[in-house]
């Protein structure tokens, strides 16, 4: 029966199941991580020495491969000397969930080791600023050019072949050039995000604009819209929701360029933090920082999705509409069926029929 079918082909799932699955999508990887971290017989390839015993090169806190440890332990035992003690651990680059969770908090409260190093929140703010500057500068030029290319074949043919060529050039390839031209501070980083975003942006937005239903343009023409008005009052509003979605996706891409951009010139922002913590072997902090990028990215996208429903009321869902955010179906509550106020269930002759009748 379709109602109980979890794997119905191209069928919408009931809302409760959607939420359950959304939660599971995070719970399952977390569970695997917990299992690897807390269950000693899963993986745990190392033994952390708590008492070196008679082994001269062991010291307290040292992580020794299992095989070596057991060999030395056997040797010490057969020689009748003090046996080394230790417990199973994972390598330092896989911290346990609770350590990362703790680092989430302590990373913000721990002062930087050197005086002129930034705090974590300063690093994050720096990264967010870099990304948004790069993205906004790109959009200021990319969106109008994209709309122009999507509307007029003239501009499309004039621009797009070059843009197609340029977008295949990996943005990091321009890193050295950016530094040479723009110095070592933030300018080359912003430029790199710009290069990574701008050319994709033109093509994607032009494509969205091109998908505008030509019948809407024709209808506007028969209503007396002039050429300019056709663009400003029909083409742009007709494609604005698609452009908005494009920008959301592109902002996600911009985050992937961030890490490359921040290595350019003087390392800065969240990348600097991650690299330093990795150097100090504080891998719990590294994981916390990486997770923070994910959380910032996801919440950014969710805020933009919500903002979209405010900005574009005509795209709001109504009864039975099925377009939902692929990640989080949290914002669209299905409307309950409202019967007209005068509606009364009609009394049936011979009383109500039961289900089998």
């Amino acid at each position: 029966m379709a109602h109980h079918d979890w794997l119905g082909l191209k069928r919408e799932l009931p809302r409760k199941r959607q939420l359950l699955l959304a939660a599971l999508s995070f719970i399952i990887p977390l569970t695997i991580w917990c299992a690897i971290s807390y269950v000693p017989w899963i993986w745990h390839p190392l033994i952390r020495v708590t008492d070196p015993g008679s082994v001269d090169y062991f010291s307290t806190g040292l992580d020794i491969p299992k095989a070596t440890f057991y060999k030395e332990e056997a040797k010490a035992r057969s020689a009748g000397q003090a046996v080394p003690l230790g417990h199973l651990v994972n390598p330092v680059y896989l911290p346990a969930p609770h350590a990362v969770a703790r680092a989430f908090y302590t990373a913000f409260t721990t002062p930087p080791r050197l005086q002129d190093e930034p705090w974590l929140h300063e690093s994050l703010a720096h990264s967010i600023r870099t990304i948004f500057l790069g993205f906004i500068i790109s959009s200021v030029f990319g969106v109008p050019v994209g709309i122009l290319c999507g509307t007029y074949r003239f501009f499309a043919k004039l621009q797009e072949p070059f843009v197609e060529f340029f977008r295949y050039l990996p943005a990091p390839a321009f890193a050295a050039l950016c530094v040479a031209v723009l110095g070592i501070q933030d300018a080359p980083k912003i430029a790199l995000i710009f290069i990574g975003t701008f050319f994709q942006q033109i093509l994607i937005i032009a494509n969205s604009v091109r998908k505008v239903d030509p019948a809407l343009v024709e209808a506007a023409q028969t209503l007396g819209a002039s050429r300019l008005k056709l663009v400003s009052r029909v083409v742009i509003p007709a494609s604005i929701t698609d452009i908005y979605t494009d920008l959301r996706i592109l902002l996600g891409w911009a985050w992937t360029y961030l890490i490359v951009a921040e290595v350019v010139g003087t390392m800065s922002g969240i990348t600097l933090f991650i690299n330093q913590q990795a150097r100090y072997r504080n891998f719990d902090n590294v994981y916390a920082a990486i997770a923070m990028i994910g959380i910032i990215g996801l919440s950014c996208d969710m805020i933009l999705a919500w903002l979209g429903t405010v900005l574009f009321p005509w795209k709001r869902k109504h009864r039975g509409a099925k377009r939902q955010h692929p990640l989080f179906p949290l914002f669209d509550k299905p409307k309950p069926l409202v019967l007209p106020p005068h509606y009364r269930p009609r009394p049936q002759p011979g009383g109500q029929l039961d289900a089998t009748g």
Partner: protein
Amino acid sequence: MQPAELKLPDYRAQSPGVAARFDRIRQRPVILRVRDLRKSFGSNGKTHVVFDGVNLDIRRREFVCVVGASGCGKSTLARIVAGLDDASGGEVLLDGRAVAGPGPDRGMVFQGYTLFPWLTVKRNVMFGLLMLGRAETAADAEAREWLEMVGLSKFEDAYPHELSGGMKQRVAIARALANNPRILLMDEPFGALDALTRCKMQSYLLQIWRKVDVTILFITHDLEEAGYLADRIVVMGANPGRIIEVIENPVPRPRDATQFLSPEFLALKARLDELIHGPADSPEEKLPVIKLTEAGDEVE
């Protein structure tokens, strides 16, 4: 069994009232004149002629339906009159002036509704008025009047996706009429609606047309629809597209659904059937015969 011959009047026979109406129409000025219109496309020596030699005069406040089998170019004709397509030859004159490109003097209602999804119902109706340079408040008031006329005042702040197909098409009609066009072009406007809604929309359209001074060129492939709505019915044939007959509809106005069984209507429909499908083209003759030999059941 041979079906009993129905005694139908000649489809050209007009009652005195109907004849008087056509006399009155013939007194009126010609709004739209189509002269030797030709449409063909293709290149490299291969041209496909959509239609050729189409001549048609439509007088003020006349309701003209164009019917024809698919491929006869009836939609193309409407699009050329609207200025959305270019003709390959001949000309279209509106009030004696050749049309070039689309304009607000020829309103159009499309089969696909084409309401602007980002505008509310009222804003959709205001769109053309604002394009003509009307002030916001004036356009607002006029749009309300039009929505009142099509019975959608309650929905003025709804978005198109919240309306049913019939309601959308009523908004589209109001939007086209708000511009006060010389002629309203309707390209199979009810083709996407279900049969019941279509019937309702047809009477709605007639009611609106009685209140508004507008000439209508209505494209359809539904013969009953044409017979119900039109003053004159232009029948087009295909390959190449051309006008094969122009029929003055003998069914008197005002029209209602009971006339679907009147002798005039049946005579008209029989003639339209004959023109479009042809006498030899009875569908039953062409169907392959399927012999059931294994059914193993007594079939009467």
